[in-house]
């Protein structure tokens, strides 16, 4: 009888361990790679190029309407800001760890739930192009605001920044601030009068 009880207890403990492990596996969330992504497209087909090109002409006076799409797959809602910069050949672009130093032209803040993509409109128009020494002088209208830029190799830079609840600030890219992954895009354009 005592042997039977001991065997019963051993079996209960063993079966309990097996069934608990199986339950834990079933209840645990599936592992996934967190990421955020960004894209830019144009409904009217007027998009520049992702590297310098001479045929990506944007005519002055013609409104350009782009849509930025931002995807959140971080496992939780994210508070993001898209910083739009207008760049020329004087400084370097953003990279995977450092944002660009070109001035911010527009910022768009948005909350994005996990597993979804949000669209942000970006509208701009070249008002005039004046040739000058060392390039061109551009007068633009960006989301209703006038912007002036001189130089050459013009391009738009879009950077994704996410809100960090620890520092209560936005930081470049996604993930923890100390090891964040930069997300950025640039679209080159050739202004024509």
């Amino acid at each position: 009888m005592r042997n039977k009880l001991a065997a019963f207890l051993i079996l209960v403990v063993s079966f309990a361990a097996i069934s608990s492990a199986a339950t834990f596996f079933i209840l645990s969330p599936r592992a996934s790679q967190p990421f955020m992504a960004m894209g830019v497209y144009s409904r009217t087909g007027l998009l520049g190029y992702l590297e310098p090109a001479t045929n990506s002409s944007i005519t002055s006076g013609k409104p350009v309407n782009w849509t930025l799409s931002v995807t959140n797959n971080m496992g939780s809602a994210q508070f993001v800001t898209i910083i739009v910069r207008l760049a020329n050949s004087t400084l370097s672009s953003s990279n995977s760890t450092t944002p660009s130093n070109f001035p911010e032209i527009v910022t768009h803040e948005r909350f994005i739930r996990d597993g979804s993509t949000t669209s942000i409109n970006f509208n701009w128009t070249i008002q005039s192009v004046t040739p000058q020494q060392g390039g061109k002088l551009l007068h633009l209208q960006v989301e209703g605001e006038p912007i002036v830029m001189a130089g050459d190799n013009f391009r738009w830079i879009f950077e994704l920044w996410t809100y960090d609840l620890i520092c209560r600030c936005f930081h470049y890219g996604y993930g923890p601030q100390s090891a964040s992954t930069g997300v950025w895009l640039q679209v080159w354009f050739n202004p024509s009068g």
Partner: protein
Amino acid sequence: MNTDRASGQPDHITTARTNIVAAFQSIQTAQRQGASNTDILPLINQLNLALQYEQNATMLEAQNRTAAADDNAIQSISLSNSVSLEAQRLGNEAQSSSIRRSILVYGLALLTAVFAAIAVIEAPTARSFLAKRRLRKAPIVFGEEKNAK
């Protein structure tokens, strides 16, 4: 990029911004506690609306339209407060439902283990019981009758 506003005295816009961030924090906490994406969706939409009101308020303040700016900031505060409360409620609900589910599932697992152990221990007894029953039901055929046929 620090988003805190430098201001001598807390105004409605600063409060609106602080409340938006607090609501965002509540949503993230609710998600950690197990609130589903479907439950979170209306809160995210409301929070985006609160953000829009706060941005309008900032823009109106820059244009010195203080009354309109205050109105927008108050709308934003009201929205983000309701989002915070709803997120906390969803989080608590999700947490207690998750605890209940865990207790139920692990209880079932334990019960299964006990029944499996009983089945293994009592298997020989059950086998011999079934054999006895089979033997009792079997017709008795006498040797002489068998030979006569």
